[in-house]
């Protein structure tokens, strides 16, 4: 394929762009240095596997005044062309370059500082690790790791190459969820005893192991099936997988627990100051989803997995609820405001959210937090450790359901205690050549 991208310089692009937000504009000082972005610089952005969900995130990113999107890669032609059209329309040119192969994309586009990766779950960790190895900062959709080992790989790679990484846990940058977290952190609820986290009310913890009927493989230019499968075991092509039908297949998905738990476990663990650990005990529940499972942290705080089919706890998706001995707070998508045991707390909403932003320098915009950190090299709100530890909770809860027995987990060693069978789930061999 041709690589006829124009290599617009950062400054050339800046010259055509609108005025850029304060405070980071310092004229004629330091220019970009191949992947390290000084505060005054524009961030050159690329895409990996951007589809429907990814285009939403890209739509949040493109208006950022200090971001320039230049190229995308995807093994599916229709998707990479969709992104090109979207970006070119936005910029009024035809400069967005497309690549079918992630390796070529990462190896050749040394001008790119950061990538938005919104592949299917099977690729999240591998793509993030490959991109960070190539010196890119990464915004990756969730669930961001298929196994504990993949999560460890993301953490160690980010640290090794001092890359900025943000998992797409955007509720960590939303006012209502932040307010709930701050109520808990500041002691409004008293002593915390229970965290409730929503898991997806459809599907089950057990997933499919069958193959969809084989269909003729399209030309590689249209669909590179080997690349689409990535590190997962080979199976024959069926277009349904590529249209979202990969969900609920064991090789590609993390079950009803990971579907929402990737968000809600991270939410509750961050809120409770437990983002650098994970529960030490998981109690098996004899149902198909994990609904009602109690996972207990070393400090005694209980995390309850809730399907909430009857809507008794929440009336929206991805809900969390924190319960202390002096009160509770609940929040989910679509709420205009938190539900609280004491309405008087709502008067403190603005103060608590503002104070949080000042204390952490994290804005109520998940993508902005990422771009700020690309420049400042601070930890993002959904940094690799937050992602990895909350996904470890997802994985352990899944293993508990699959093995149908109670589990003990050692967060320091990151292994199940006295359970060799469970420990085998910590990693899956990756299909060559997509190894990390």
């Amino acid at each position: 394929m041709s690589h006829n991208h124009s290599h617009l310089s950062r400054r050339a692009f800046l010259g055509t762009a609108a005025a850029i937000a304060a405070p980071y504009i310092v004229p004629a000082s330091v220019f970009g240095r191949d992947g390290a972005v000084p505060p005054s610089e524009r961030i050159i952005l690329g895409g990996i596997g951007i589809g429907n969900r990814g285009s939403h995130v890209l739509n949040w990113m493109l208006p950022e005044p200090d971001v320039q999107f230049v190229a995308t890669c995807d093994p599916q032609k229709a998707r990479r062309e969709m992104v090109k059209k979207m970006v070119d329309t936005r910029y009024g040119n035809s400069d967005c370059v497309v690549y079918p192969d992630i390796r070529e994309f990462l190896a050749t586009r040394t001008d790119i500082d950061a990538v938005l990766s919104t592949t299917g779950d099977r690729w999240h960790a591998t793509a993030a690790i490959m991109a960070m190895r190539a010196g890119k900062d990464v915004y990756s959709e969730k669930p961001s790791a298929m196994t504990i080992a993949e999560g460890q790989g993301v953490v160690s790679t980010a640290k090794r190459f001092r890359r900025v990484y943000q998992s797409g846990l955007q509720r960590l940058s939303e006012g209502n969820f932040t307010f709930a977290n701050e109520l808990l952190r500041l002691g409004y609820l008293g002593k915390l005893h229970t965290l409730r986290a929503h898991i997806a009310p459809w599907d089950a913890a057990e997933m499919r192991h069958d193959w969809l009927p084989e269909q003729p493989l399209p030309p590689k230019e249209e669909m590179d099936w080997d690349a689409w499968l990535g590190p997962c075991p080979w199976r024959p092509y069926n277009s349904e997988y590529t249209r979202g039908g990969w969900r609920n297949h064991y090789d590609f998905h993390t079950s009803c627990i990971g579907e929402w738990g990737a968000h809600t476990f991270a939410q509750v663990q961050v809120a409770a100051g437990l983002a650098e650990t994970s529960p030490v005990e998981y109690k098996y529940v004899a149902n198909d989803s994990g609904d009602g499972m109690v996972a207990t942290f070393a400090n005694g705080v209980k995390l309850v997995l809730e399907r909430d089919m009857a809507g008794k706890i929440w009336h929206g998706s991805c809900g969390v609820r924190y319960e202390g001995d002096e009160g509770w707070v609940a929040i989910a998508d679509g709420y205009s405001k938190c539900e609280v045991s004491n309405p008087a707390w709502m008067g403190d909403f603005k103060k608590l959210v503002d104070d949080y932003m000042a204390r952490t320098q994290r804005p109520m915009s998940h993508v902005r937090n990422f771009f700020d950190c690309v420049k400042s090299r601070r930890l993002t709100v959904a940094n690799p450790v937050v992602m990895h530890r909350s996904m470890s909770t997802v994985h352990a809860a899944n293993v508990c359901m699959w093995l149908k027995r109670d589990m003990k987990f050692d967060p320091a060693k990151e292994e199940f205690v006295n359970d060799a069978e469970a420990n085998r789930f910590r990693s899956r061999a990756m299909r060559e050549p997509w190894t990390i």
Partner: protein
Amino acid sequence: MAENSFEENVMLKSRVHLILIVTLLLACAGQTFAQTVAAKGDEPKLIAVLKDSAAPLKAKIDACRQLAIVGGKDSIAPLASLLGDEQLSHNARYALQMNPDPAVDAALRDALGTVKGRPLAGVIFTVGYRRDAKAVPTLASLVNSGNAMVVDAAARALGNIGNSEAAQALQQALGKVPAECKLAVYEGLARCAESFVAGGKNQDAIAIYEQLYKSNAPHHVRGGALRAAILARDASGGQKLLQEQLANSDYILFSAAAQASHQMGAAEVTTILTGATKALVADRQIVVIQALGVRGDKGATPALLTMAQNGEPPVRVAAIRAVVELGDGSSVPVLVQLLDDGNREIAKAAQEGLATFPGPKADDAVMQMFAGTNTDKQRMALDLMGRRRMTSGLPALVQTANSVDSKIRTDAIKMIGELGGSEQLPTMFGLLKNVQAFQELAAVEQSLTAICLRSPDSDQQARQVIGQLEKAEPTQKASLIRVLGALGGPSALQAVCACARSDNADVRSASARALGTWKTIDAAPSLLTLAKETSNPAEKTLFVRGYLSLAGRGDVPAPDRVAMCRQAVGLIARDEEKRLLLGTLSNIELPEAMDLISPYVDDAGIRQEAVLAAVTLGEKLLKRDDAKSFADKLVPALEKAAQAASDATVANRVKTVLQQAKDKAGAK
């Protein structure tokens, strides 16, 4: 026993295979949503599948997946035999990678010498994952193989193993590997250094890190290595390297050094950072200032305050944010002073900083501003009080609210509403009696409402408000009624209904308006009674509208809603209310609602609205599963609507729905 002929043997073998395959396929079909974990004791059966050359690929892949969890020593050899199989090599590794038996390592080491191509890269990866130190000599050879895929995998595997021999092999390979593989060797070395740090061999790690950050490796390798080198050193060694690199003209290394300081707690580091800023350009100053904020050492405050007051505006803004992050009280007077800065961005940053600055010193500064004579500053102080949730400011706010001459009286009253609790209710009741200006009265009303609504027991608050009604003048009484309307609840409802029968027109009007927008269904009987009682057309309209609004609520049972509408029919005279009634009825999915709509088709003033309501309701009703049971009852009303419809589109809809009604009635 006679031997079978060749053909018979083939047929027998085929039959056995067929049975086995059918069994496996059935098992697979059963596994579509089945258990991820095979039953204990299944290992022999799974091994048999692997060994059966006629077993389908899917069955073999499933067997590997299940052996990954239940496979023991017996499965190792059969799986190892598949490592060179292009199609199944990965699946074999999938089964072997997490098997803790040391025989797996031996099998994988053997495979390193026999397997070729893509599968070899996979085997190398798994060897590295398992950290098999005995594989280092073979991996050392493979890292020099010249095959990029193999070199990459071997370099990273050596890094994972991370011992001295692995590091040595990587060092030797560094100058020999193809250019595109150098990154993998760098990463392998970095992984070795990480293992050395974890094992307390920091000097060995530092040697590698120094080699990497001083090399011409890609930016992230150099930056990561420098950061790690600083952190791997002892405190003074790390500080020395930090100081040195903060002055590096290479932005990558400068930035990495600044980032390393995030994790360096010593006070000396603060001195190094603040000292370094003087010689830096603005961009780099911002990076160091942000590092000072992240580190949280309040000792940086004086230097940051100096930067907040002088220099490039973006640097000053960064410094203001950093001092707020540190939260040292000595910053407060400077922030107050910066509120008057000629640069709006600076003044805004200072105001934002004061809004979120932790601790009582900022509260004191805000109160001092409020006590001054500059009205603009007082308003700013009010804003800050609200954002800081300064309940400590309530006495001063009450004093200002009671001061007739104050230019910020209304704002102070509103702020009491934002910050106050039930203890401020007497103050608000007092103000209600005393304020004269409309704006002030509205502010008191707004604050009273806010305070009461925040209470966990709003009915208790409502009772306090009700206690004020008797002695209040009509104007104040109207305010209290509006507060009660916002609060709702049984006590408030009773009180407002009583006021609706007041002799005073203003009080009655306020009551009617409050009742007309009442949110709970318990107000319905009172609204109906009042609508019947009143002789005032305006009040009657409000009561009827409120009543119909409640009848339109989806959470009220449909039969009750029809009954409410039936009650309302006799009270409605104006076309506006008739339209409201028709709108409500068209959403109640009961045939009885159609009976109430139909008469309005005869009403020339709202005929077409009635036709539209009839067809809308008819369409909904006929979609019900039990439509056949009542369709005949709809026919007369729909025929009447069909005759009256003047709009062609609506007429078509009526015609269609009428036919549907007839069809369903006929099919009864």
